[in-house]
Every structure is written in structure tokens, then in C-alpha cells.
């Protein structure tokens, strides 16, 4: 039984039916080319379907839960731990050695690498994801934008370097300030820079180019209008090889730091039902236009005011196509919690050549779900990453609580990987119930040995603007008090010092060594 949290997802009857059909799928064994919580998440569904789950791992991850959970785990090596997970050759060799018939790339690493998807197919294996052509189209942000605009969907005013490199800076100026410089080959917020004045433009273009070159091996850029105080709203889509495309509603991912998401939820507090339908149908339309196959996410920038070229909805709201991610997203669980659909199961079903397990009118949304990314980072120190051993770990439990974790006690949190350790997904019948449950669950989330952001997330939850759903991507910058370490109260300080003193050998032993005299005096003086 693939029980996630305390709500069986998918419905047990759907799981049973899919499981029996999976017996005749073209693959009976799936290799997961990823690590951490997402490797565990994918394994859970693979194994629930009666398929064999194989993982690759770098030595730095030897103690990781995916390694012990997998039916087979194959060690891979690399100049750095990350390099191992990017080594297509070793991963393909592991797939063949283990008899895997399909490779699920998860997110990050090789998940949006068209060359890898081609190499998987060339090796006679199935890539659990879209076609290489679709990855390429959406991976080139400039081409993707042009494709979306051509389909009649809304995109932000922009200037693209490739159109005419000689006049790029000039055309960028014409877009107007503030503007955002982005690498053409980018994603995940890497190398993006906001420019507010013409004087900074040239220097920032050079910096963005250098970062783009280093991260993506591609220094080409584009700029687009920066929507002030925008929301980031994205829509989950699923397509199959039979031409079916559905959406599974939106996710609001506006609480970010350094362009990276921290909290995601669905439904978005910003949308009324008409706007919700409109943004979701726009996403499905874009995916349909691309003949999109497998799981993907269409991201939009959503603003409160009107601007030229934007699709306008209720009031003055506007939204622009931002990009499409051609893979499973980190934040997919909130969608699973409100729709009851298992996205990994559908990915595998589509990869096996079957049509989707449901039609658009069978996708219903109920309740509210919020995901919190548990990061190894110190919010009070500018969200800088932290490292350390996982000395003790207690995960929260309770009604509506799901934890997708990639860590266990005894592991080390190192700077070698992304600082996301786990995801806490909390659901309720409505947003306020989810928030109350989330606060309890975050308080229960105990990890000792490495600083995490759980206390920060609790402060965020209690902020009035968050409670009111009034967030935007610059929300945390606008409210630095949320990240600041609050003053410790005297009662807590006393309790901490008491616990620390009693746990410290030189202190406790010192006290124990003079028991009689001290004890006598102690009772005497009391």
C-alpha cells in the first residue's frame, strides 16, 4: 500500500488496478537517477506497483534512506559527489547491469538534459519524462518563450540577445526598468539579476553572462520586464503519448529567497475560481500545443496590476508565461494531496505507453495543502547553508501530515549537495486548518546537529501577511524580521542551560564527585 501521510494516495483500487496492468508493462524494473527525498518518493511508488526499484548513489550518500530502501543500489563515482549524479555513462551502465528497463530522473541533475534522454533511448531503455525535443524546446528559455507567444499565450515584454547581439543592451534599455536578466539556458534562479537603473545594466549583463557560462556552459542572455511584487503561480500538467493533456490545478510558490522556493501551497490564495480556471487552461493549452507527454509544470508570473501584453483576469490581475519545467517538481506533493492523484504513478503509466488514468473532469480539488522545504540553512545569517551530522532526528506525525525525507540519523549534511533535507507537507480542509497543523508539525520536526529552517518557517506561518495570503516573491526581503533570530526569553535560556549542564560530563561528574557534603549542605540550606 502506497500510503503517503495518513491519506492513501492514490486510491487503493486505482493502485491495485495499475499494479496488475504493470505486470505487462515494457519495464519491470526502474532505475532512479537521483538522491535524497525524491529518490525515496519515487521508490515508494515504483515498489507499490510491484516493480523493482534500483538506485545509484555516491559514497557520500551511502547511509541515505533511498539506498537501504531500494531493491538494488549501485555505487557511482565522480570528481565531486554532484558530478557522479551527472555522469550519464555510469548511470546507463548501472541501468544495464541491474536489468532496469526504465530510468526516472527525478528533478535536477539529468532530469532536463535532452542528451541524456536520447542516450537512454539509444540504450534501449525508457526515459520517464517527455521527449528530448520537448526538453530542448522548453529548456531553451528564449525558444520556449517564442513558442508560447506564437500560440497566443501571454509572455512578458522582453529583449533577446540572440535576435541581434550588437543591439542587445540598447533593446534591454527599451524594455524599461526594473528588468530581470536571465541566462537563456538557465533555470532554478541561477544567474538571474534584477536591474533597476540604466547605469547598472552593463555590469550586471557581464556578471550574468559569467554565471551563465559557468553554470550552463552558455553565456547567452535575455532580459524581461520585472513585475514588482509578483506572485509565482504554476500549474501542474500531465500528458500522454495518445494526445491527452490535463492540468491538476495550480500551486502558489511565492515565498522564496534568492529566487528559490521555500513554501508552496495549493490552491493559491490569489485566485478566484474564474482566474484559476483561466490560468490552468492556459497551462494545459501550452502543453497541448507542444504535444506534451509526461509530467510538467508551466510557471507564470502573476501581478496585481495591468501591463501591456498581459492576460487580464479578475480585477487588474495579469499573468505571463515564465517557463515550463519538463519534469516532476519538488513541490508536486501538494497537488497529490488535494487531487488524490499519484503523479509518479501517472509518470510511469505514461512512460509505459498507456493513456492517462483519468480525464480532465475527473481531476477534482479538495482541501488545502502546504509544503515547507526543510533546508539546512541559517535564516538569521542570510539563509546561508549549514552543515553538520544528523545526531538525532524525529519526524512529525499526525492528521494531514506527510513527510518526504531524504535523511536519517547518522548521516552527515555536507556542502556537497543542495541544502534541502526534507519536505513537510501539511493538509487540511481549508487553509487555516492547514496552517494550524503546520505549526504543530514544524514544532515536532526535530533535527539535532545541523541548523535547519524550521523555527524560521514557524515565524513565517505566524506573520499576518502570510496568514492573509498576501505574499509575493520579494516578501521575505520586504520582511527581514521573519528571518531574524528572536530574543531568547529567560525561562527558555534557564532550561537550555540546565539541560546542557546536565548533559556535559565535566559538569555532571564534578557535581557527582562531591555528593555527600554538597547534598547535605543542599538539603540543609533548603
Amino acid at each position, binding site marked *: 500500500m502506497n500510503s503517503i501521510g495518513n491519506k492513501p494516495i492514490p486510491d487503493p483500487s486505482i493502485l491495485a488496478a495499475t499494479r496488475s496492468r504493470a505486470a505487462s508493462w515494457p519495464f519491470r524494473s526502474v532505475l532512479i537517477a537521483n538522491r535524497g527525498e525524491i529518490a525515496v518518493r519515487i521508490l515508494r511508488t515504483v515498489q507499490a506497483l510491484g516493480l523493482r526499484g534500483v538506485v545509484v548513489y555516491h559514497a557520500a550518500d551511502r547511509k541515505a534512506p533511498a539506498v537501504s530502501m531500494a531493491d538494488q543500489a549501485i555505487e557511482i563515482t565522480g570528481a565531486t559527489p554532484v558530478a557522479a549524479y551527472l555522469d550519464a555513462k555510469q548511470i546507463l551502465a548501472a541501468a544495464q547491469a541491474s536489468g532496469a528497463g526504465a530510468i526516472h530522473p527525478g528533478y535536477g541533475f539529468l532530469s532536463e538534459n535532452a542528451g541524456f534522454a536520447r542516450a537512454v533511448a539509444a540504450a534501449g531503455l525508457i526515459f520517464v519524462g517527455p521527449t528530448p525535443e520537448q526538453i530542448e524546446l522548453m529548456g531553451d528559455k528564449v525558444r520556449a518563450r517564442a513558442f508560447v507567444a506564437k500560440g497566443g499565450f501571454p509572455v512578458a515584454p522582453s529583449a533577446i540577445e540572440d535576435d541581434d547581439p550588437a543591439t542587445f543592451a540598447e533593446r534591454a534599455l527599451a524594455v524599461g526598468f526594473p528588468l530581470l536578466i536571465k541566462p537563456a539556458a538557465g533555470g532554478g534562479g541561477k544567474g538571474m539579476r534584477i536591474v533597476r537603473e540604466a547605469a547598472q545594466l552593463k555590469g550586471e549583463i557581464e556578471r550574468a553572462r559569467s554565471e551563465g557560462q559557468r553554470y550552463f556552459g552558455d553565456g547567452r542572455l535575455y532580459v524581461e520586464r520585472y513585475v514588482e511584487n509578483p506572485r509565482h503561480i504554476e500549474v501542474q500538467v500531465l500528458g500522454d503519448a495518445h494526445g491527452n493533456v490535463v492540468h491538476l490545478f495550480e500551486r502558489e510558490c511565492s515565498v522564496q529567497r*534568492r529566487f528559490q522556493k521555500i513554501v508552496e501551497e495549493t490552491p493559491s490564495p490569489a485566485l478566484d475560481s474564474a482566474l484559476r480556471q483561466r490560468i490552468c487552461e492556459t497551462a494545459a493549452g501550452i502543453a497541448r500545443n507542444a504535444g506534451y507527454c509526461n509530467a510538467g509544470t508551466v510557471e507564470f508570473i502573476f501581478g496585481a496590476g495591468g501591463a501591456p501584453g498581459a492576460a487580464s483576469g479578475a480585477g487588474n490581475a495579469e499573468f505571463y508565461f515564465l517557463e515550463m519545467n519538463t519534469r516532476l517538481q519538488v513541490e508536486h506533493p501538494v497537488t497529490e494531496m488535494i487531487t488524490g492523484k499519484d503523479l509518479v504513478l501517472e509518470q510511469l503509466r505514461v512512460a509505459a505507453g498507456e493513456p492517462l488514468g483519468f480525464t480532465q473532469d475527473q481531476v477534482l480539488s479538495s482541501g488545502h495543502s502546504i509544503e515547507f522545504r526543510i533546508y539546512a540553512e541559517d535564516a538569521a545569517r542570510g539563509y546561508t*547553508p549549514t552543515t553538520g551530522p544528523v545526531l538525532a532526528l524525529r519526524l512529525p506525525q499526525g492528521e494531514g501530515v506527510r513527510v518526504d525525507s531524504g535523511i536519517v540519523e547518522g548521516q552527515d549534511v555536507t*556542502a556537497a549537495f543542495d541544502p534541502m533535507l526534507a519536505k513537510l507537507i501539511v493538509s487540511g480542509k481549508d487553509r487555516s486548518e492547514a496552517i494550524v497543523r503546520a505549526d504543530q508539525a514544524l514544532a515536532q520536526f526535530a533535527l539535532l546537529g545541523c*541548523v535547519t529552517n524550521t523555527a524560521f518557517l514557524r515565524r513565517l506561518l505566524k506573520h499576518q501577511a502570510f496568514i492573509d495570503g498576501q505574499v509575493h516573491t520579494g516578501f521575505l526581503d520586504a520582511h527581514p524580521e521573519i528571518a531574524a533570530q528572536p530574543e531568547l526569553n529567560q525561562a527558555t535560556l534557564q*532550561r*537550555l542551560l540546565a539541560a546542557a549542564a546536565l548533559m556535559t560530563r*565535566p*559538569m555532571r561528574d564534578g557535581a557527582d564527585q562531591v555528593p555527600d557534603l554538597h547534598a547535605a549542605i543542599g*538539603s540543609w540550606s533548603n
Partner: protein
Amino acid sequence: MHHAFKLEENEYNLELSRTPVGYCLHLADGSVPVNLNLLSDGSALLTVSGSSERILLATRGDDVFIHLGGSAYQLRYEHPLQRLAAQSQGAAEDHVRAPMPGSLVALHVEPGQSVTRGETLLVMESMKMETTIIAPRDGVIEAVHFAVGQTFDRDALLLSLEADAVEGKKP
């Protein structure tokens, strides 16, 4: 009181003594009865002034990690001798440490090279962003402790400057 713990940037002096029923914690502003019972599930029952709560704790070397009241804390036991030694140690500006974990992207100096205050020493990468580390004062590079591509933890010693009080005061 010769025992102390450091929490965040603050140091707290304290003493522990035995009582017939447990312990007594002596702080600068008074004493309170305390006790700690480790439970079989790895958590512990902390009692302070008669009020008990379940907490989670772990130690590593001189560090004590505590999860209490829904938040995690780290306290460091300060050995009496080390506290004395720390007070007589050289200037912190002789040592350039990593402000955060990351990796070395570019190195602009080598041992023996003279640098002026504010000059770029190296570029590190963390959180997918570059951070430039500059010279804290004028001086001569004594040693470089990492090579390009290597990763390090927060507070790792990246570079050392030769101790040179005269150079450090140049305008």
C-alpha cells in the same frame, strides 16, 4: 563560577551541584533545582523548578544540541583553560575564514604576495552565487589553505596573513 556555555554570541557562567533529589543549577542571577532523566526512546525529561517537559538532546564533543519548545538550539561548553587561552590569542584579522560553506571558484593571491585592504583575495561560491572575499587589512599572504574546486564548511580557514602590526596600520 568557572564553567560556561556559549549560545549564539553570548557566554553564560554557571555551576552545577548535587542535591538529595537531583541537582541545583547556579546562575549569575540565582539557583534553581534541576534534573534530567534520559528516556528509552532517546528523548529526555527535563525538570526545572518542578516543571517537566520532554526534550530531545544530543552531544558531539563540546557541543550540546537541544530541541526544546519546538526549536533547536546549540550550546558549546567552554573549557576553563581554553577560555583563558582564547583571551591571549592573536588578532582575528590574521585569519580569513569562510562566511558560509561553499567551494573555491577563483584564487587571486599566492603565499608571499602583498595585498592591500579591500583587495580581492578569492571568489567562493555558495547557494549558487559568487561571493568575493576581500583582504581585511594590508599585509602579506602567509598561506592559502584551499585549491580551486575544493569545498569547505563554514568558518574553515581559507587564508592566513602574516602577523604584521605595522603593515596593518597603513592608510
